């Protein structure tokens, strides 16, 4: 299982510094107690047996010559650079925003990752085409532990799309991921993450970012799958004018359970953030939405907003919302809003009076809520298939 022997195996053939980082993480992992997710009844979760992931997960790199992409599991010659970037997350100042979804899951991902990429877009480089990463789990590759580091150097521009998916509806798969992101001065980075696991699989994902002066980071997390899906997305807006946004969509049906956390940690002056989340719950689905806006002392003239809208389609759903606003600075503007309820009866009635069936009308309303965010997916194929998936599931 997840022991020293496995770490030894994993470090064979891997470069030195990254290997020793694995071992450090293992030491942490050993001594940590695992957190529970009581609100979705996920208690004493047992990690399934380790298994390697041997498939290709990077789409060919046309037009990406200027980009640096390395597999974290390889024997790398630029590992010092990677370590330097990783060390930036250890800074005391960012500690508040460097927790991941749970220290144990975080240490697990860093000790036992079986995939993962280091992606760097150099200074002043602007990439037109998105980088596409797809992890497709199957019988031979049922465990995915990805450790990614994405860096946008000064004044660069990049979009990364990561698609987590599976075809096999009976597979019991497991994902515990970690994506660290650094956005330097004036850079713009967009990250789209789509998760469409089947309802037998468990998904855990930590996303942690640092955004510098005038840097901009836009997340588009689209959570559609998993039996249990626990994700965390935390951003530290370190300097003047750092910006981050999260445009999230979640859809849970059947007996799926989701615990989604979003955090904006304002440190820099004039930093700004926006969290927008649109969700739909159906059947017996359970979901927890956690949105935290922190204004640390010194973040004067920062502004942050957070908005969650959730449509409840059945009596048997369970919807928890925990929006939090913490402020240590007076010269800020922070607000959050939540609205929850059914589809507006009048609108539904109007659509039905135009000849749509109730199911069609409902589907149209859900699409209307989701589409502004789906439109941010830069790949048409992916967007089309996501829209299709949602359509089918709303109707069933």
């Amino acid at each position, binding site marked *: 299982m997840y022991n020293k022997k496995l770490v030894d195996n994993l470090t064979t053939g891997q470069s030195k510094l990254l290997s020793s980082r694995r071992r450090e993480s293992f030491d942490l992992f050993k001594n940590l107690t695992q957190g529970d997710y009581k609100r979705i009844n996920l208690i004493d979760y047992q990690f399934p047996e380790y298994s390697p992931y041997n498939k290709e997960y990077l789409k060919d790199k046309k037009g990406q010559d200027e980009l640096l992409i390395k597999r974290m599991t390889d024997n790398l010659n630029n590992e010092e650079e990677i370590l330097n970037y990783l060390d930036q997350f250890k800074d005391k100042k960012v500690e508040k925003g460097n927790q991941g979804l749970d220290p144990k899951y975080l240490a697990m991902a860093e000790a036992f990752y079986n995939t993962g990429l280091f992606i760097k877009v150099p200074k002043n480089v602007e990439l037109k085409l998105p980088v596409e990463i797809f992890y497709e789990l199957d019988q031979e590759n049922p465990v995915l532990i990805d450790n990614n580091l994405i860096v946008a150097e000064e004044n660069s521009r990049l979009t990364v799309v990561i698609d987590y998916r599976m075809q096999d509806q009976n597979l019991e798969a497991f994902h515990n991921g970690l994506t660290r992101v650094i956005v330097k001065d004036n850079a713009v980075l967009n990250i789209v993450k789509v998760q469409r696991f089947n309802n037998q699989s468990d998904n855990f994902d930590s996303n942690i970012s640092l955004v510098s002066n005038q840097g901009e980071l836009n997340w588009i997390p689209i959570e559609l799958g998993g039996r249990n899906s626990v994700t965390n997305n935390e951003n530290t807006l370190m300097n003047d004018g750092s910006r981050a946004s999260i445009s999230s969509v979640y859809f849970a049906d059947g007996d799926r359970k989701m615990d989604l956390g979003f955090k904006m940690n304002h440190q820099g002056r004039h930093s700004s953030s926006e969290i927008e989340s649109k969700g739909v719950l159906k059947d017996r689905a359970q979901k927890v939405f956690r949105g935290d806006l922190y204004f640390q002392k010194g973040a004067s003239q920062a502004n942050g907003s957070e908005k969650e809208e959730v449509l409840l389609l059945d009596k048997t759903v369970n919807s928890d919302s925990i929006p939090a606003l913490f402020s240590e600075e007076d010269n800020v503007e922070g607000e*959050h809003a939540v609205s929850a309820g059914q589809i507006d009866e009048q609108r539904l009635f109007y659509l039905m009076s135009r000849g749509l069936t109730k199911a069609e009308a409902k589907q149209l309303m859900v699409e209307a809520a989701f589409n502004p965010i789906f439109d941010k997916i830069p790949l048409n194929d992916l967007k089309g298939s996501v829209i299709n998936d949602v359509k089918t599931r709303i109707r069933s």
Partner: protein
Amino acid sequence: MNDKTEVNDIDRSLHEEKNVEKHRYQSAKGLTPEVIKEISREKDEPEWMLKFRLKALKIYKNKEVPTWGADISDLDMDNIITYVRPDADLQSDWDQVPEEIKDTFDALGIPEAEKESLAGVGAQYDSEVVYHNLKEEMVEQGVIYMDMENAVKQHEDLVKQHFMKLITPNDHKFSALHGAVWSGGSFVYVPAGVDVNIPLQSYFRQNAPGSGQFEHTLIILEEGANAHFIEGCSAPKYSVNNLHAGAVELFINKGAKLRYSTIENWSRNMYNLNTKRALVEEDGVIEWVSGSFGSKVSMLYPMSILKGARARAEFTGVTFAAEGQYLDTGAQVIHDAPDTTSTVNSRSIAKDGGHAYYRGLLKATKNAHGAKASVSCESLMLDNESKSDTLPIMKLQTDDIDVGHEAKVGRISEEAVFYLMSRGISEEEAKAMIVRGFVEPIASELPLEYAVELNNLINLELEGTIG
């Protein structure tokens, strides 16, 4: 440049005046079954109450101190005196109350208010109620308003049926403590259809140092009854920490309506860990009006349980946290029946390093179809030494509901100040107007004398230059 608006604290001298400590009986420090038995014997209570106290004490010993919220490690539980009997018997004629105690309540304006606008008054000094009075016409209609001790004896069945049924010793450590050592408080019973059209008021005053006040308030409104209850609290400031762990249980039957107003102005060494709950039946209404200004630490989350169809809850609260204060307050509403509605409106102000925390819960159970709820929290920060946090939790277990929530934090808007100044108003006055406007929705809900108190509190000083 950019000077901050100065908001002055309320003049506390009135509330913090201490009297020479005089008491007839004081329980030993700390908590043992012997102390509990002693308190019960002093009060000459029925056997069941003593049993209840001892059971609660056991629960108390086994419960952990909550790890969230305030740091209460400064509170030395073993050294809190749980029971202090003042050197006075219960009176219903104001002139009979000992001079010193009377002066204290006079200074607080209690008998004066009674003459003018109250249907009844109760005053508690340390652990015991020293004065209780109810207007004759109310007595004639069958209204009961008396201190809890006498209610336990005179209306034993009624009390036994309701006492700590809504808040049980199992709920948390401080409700268990309350169950073990409760003393004093008011009992109100309004028969079916009776409208107590002028407010009833109880005032709690804690004089002995290093003591705890654990009053129990039990209010029962029968079908269609209507009442307004006002609770006021204060204590002089000693160097040792005092504890207030009262309990308020409100039973609102079919179609009844209760307004429960509180102005809490404990001195700044008080740990205010109060528990309040209302159970509302069909078409019943609970209205909470709550002002939290005093205490060192407050953890107070009044809960409304909407158990009957179309029951309604309204919460209007203002919290003002100044230097050295950590005020953790908020409303809890549980929608457990169809077509229930609730409105929560909270405003908080933090200044001089004060920490205001709104922590609320909104829950809609499977039975709550057709429920409507809205929560609105606004926080104003007057400087960047202070902290302001908002954490409204929502838990929805059915689909046919309409829930909305909004929260905001920020400081006085410069644009608004600028606009008012462009209309010929001075900067100071403009800022004062904005702060007054900020708490206006709450101030307008308060009884007049408390609205005045609130206004004093937000007595803005002219300070600062144009930025």
